[in-house]
């Protein structure tokens, strides 16, 4: 009888337990020697996707480099909840300078390490979506274009959470934020042209670009590990739900991150040198309503009655991603 490949498949989560894996395939978080770069005691909200993503990403970077990482952090939730002076949750060398300059600060750190002949010390820059796709974009593009030896990670919670949930360039259409309230003839955030910084990063043809979500943390870790194998400018865009800003239940953070991927709203892929090298396929196609409904930021799409027109437009955006990135076999070209 031919050997059947083992399918690690748990209904609902698509995630397999660490116990089923070979020890060296297990998550960094499952190891005694994990570095706990963002250690306990910080002040993030319960269920904060950003805190989760940052811990997994940085611990993976630490493991990949033998603990030789220094980090630059933009202003934002991650910075504020982790460093109320004189306390700090960071167990790696860490600097916060400003909201819009983390990529440039990181570039300066990498330059310092090069000048000092300490290139074994690796630099990670990190920011929220606001610090990345909006106010930090010029510095980020400069860092990409120069191919500075920095891994930059964007924790995308789709809004300026730290200042009280205002819209950012990464806020999805129709979403309610503090300055895109569900009032007027077009409630919530406007349908704009969108701004995909992963694609902008790819246009710079930097060595590595990847997206990930906190629903698939092993995938996030693997992408950070891959990024640390390479030199030059690398970019990871991590999708991190924010219960406070989205009006979602704390326990739904992982579920929403998974639905963002399974609906096609957030394509998960990797690219090297400007070419897509891997796409995480959708396992079970899900209509966008399932993703939208549990979030109060979209409540106005369902009450007093369902706003089909807007929901259809959002669905059309997800379908376009599916075709464009080839998220489902046989649907669309997949040539990004």
């Amino acid at each position, binding site marked *: 009888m031919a050997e059947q490949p083992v399918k690690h498949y748990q209904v609902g989560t698509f995630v397999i337990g660490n116990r089923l894996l070979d020890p060296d395939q297990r998550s960094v978080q499952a190891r005694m020697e994990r570095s706990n770069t963002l250690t306990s005691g910080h002040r993030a909200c319960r269920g904060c996707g950003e805190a989760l993503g940052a811990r997994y990403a940085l611990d993976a970077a630490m493991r990949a480099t033998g603990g030789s990482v220094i980090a630059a952090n933009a202003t934002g939730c991650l910075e504020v909840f982790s460093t*109320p*002076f004189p306390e700090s949750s960071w167990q790696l060398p860490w600097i*916060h300078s*400003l909201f819009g300059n983390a990529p*440039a600060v990181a570039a300066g750190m990498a330059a310092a390490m090069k*000048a000092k002949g300490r290139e074994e010390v690796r630099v990670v820059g990190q920011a929220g979506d606001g610090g990345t796709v909006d106010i930090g974009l010029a*510095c980020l593009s400069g860092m990409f274009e120069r191919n500075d030896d920095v891994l930059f990670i964007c924790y995308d919670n789709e809004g300026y959470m730290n200042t009280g949930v205002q819209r950012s360039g990464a806020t999805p259409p129709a979403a309610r934020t503090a300055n895109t309230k569900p009032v007027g003839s077009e409630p919530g955030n406007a349908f704009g042209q969108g701004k995909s910084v992963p694609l902008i990063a790819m246009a710079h043809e930097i060595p590595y670009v990847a997206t990930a979500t906190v629903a698939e943390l092993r995938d996030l870790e693997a992408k950070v590990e891959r990024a640390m194998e390479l030199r030059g400018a690398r970019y990871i865009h991590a999708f991190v739900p924010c219960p406070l800003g989205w009006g979602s239940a704390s326990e739904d953070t992982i579920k929403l991150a998974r639905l963002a991927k399974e609906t096609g709203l957030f394509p998960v892929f990797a690219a090297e040198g400007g070419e897509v090298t891997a796409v995480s396929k959708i396992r079970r196609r899900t209509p966008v309503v399932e993703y939208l409904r549990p979030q109060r930021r979209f409540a106005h799409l369902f009450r007093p009655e369902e706003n089909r027109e807007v929901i259809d437009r959002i669905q059309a955006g997800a379908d376009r991603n599916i075709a464009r990135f080839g998220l489902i076999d046989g649907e669309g070209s997949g040539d990004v």
Partner: protein
Amino acid sequence: MLEQLEGSQAIARTVAACRPEVISAYPISPQTHIVEGLSDLVRAGDLAPCEYLMVESEFGAMSACIGASAAGARAYTATASQGLLYMAEALYNASGLGLPIVMTLANRAIGAPINIWNDHSDAMSQRDSGWIQLYAETNQEAADLHVQAFRLAERISLPVMVCMDGFILTHAYEEVDVPSPERVDAYLPPFEPRQVLDPDEPVTIGAMVGPEAFTEVRYLMHAKQLEALDLIPSIAGEFESAFGRRSGGLVRGYRIEDAETVVIALGSVLGTIEEVVDELREQGVRIGALAIKCFRPWPSQEIRAALSDVGRVIVLEKAFAVGAGGIVGQNVRLALGGGARIHDVIGGLGGRPITRRSLRTLLEDVLADRLEPRLLHFLDLDHDVVERELERLRRGGRPGPHAENIVRELGIVAARPH
């Protein structure tokens, strides 16, 4: 060894002699020749190890210096005018973090109207940014101040801005003895900060400080600047022993011993002022000049001491607080208290030359009590032009851009629609 060379080249070579490990700069006139010169030196391998980052903006330039300095590298940048404003947020950040970055400021006006020529509006706009501000009178002094600046910055953990007049100094060819790397090595110890970003000792830098400690941090910044008032003269003194010439310090008097009238100024205009002082001295006028070499920290005591017997002070400055008055003048008043009669005179804005002739007329007016001390005086102001525009507004005229309104009042209008 004295060489005939452009001011910018002298600065580039002096900065290189200070062995910066990271340079990060963005071009803007009149700073360009300095950073171009440094780029040449790095590319040719004459300045090594050093990483030169061609950033996308001045904000990026200062930010990269912040990252480099926090990681323990000696960091340098240069800018001017709009560039300084573009990095304003990062300037405050560098000083608040106590990072000893050194920057050349090739002083230039700030627009609108856009103007590339020299004045001090850029430096003065950042006078409260927590940076130490030194002003050079000559290219020799500008070069020497950079060597002193690194030493001062790293000694006191504050960033230092070396201000030199754009074009007037940066683009002037004159004799300079460029400090040699060997002598600089002997004078300037290596940069060894107490806390750096290093995996061997993970520290958090730049945490969020609340009301319970913010005042203490700001106080420390202030106290360190005040300590610089003692350090700057001693660093200049050691420089003199090592290099055999006087440069820098806090203030420098010129023929002030028995002076009844003293002209105060910053930067290269002192040369012209001294010539006029000499002319008036020949006619028996007891007049002198006082160069302010260090504007931040403000050397109050030294100024008071230098001017203790002076009845009349003219502060000639190349910037002013719009809607309020002179900036240096205000600081001088603070230093002198009630005593002297202080005339605030604004000149040299946007590159308008401060000539010997206008300076002489001005001083003669002051000496003959023809200048009202309570009013802000503008050297060589074209009264007709401004009066015409003011009159138009008083008549209820419509708003519009200042410069273009002047032209329109003269009957010159923009292109016709097509």
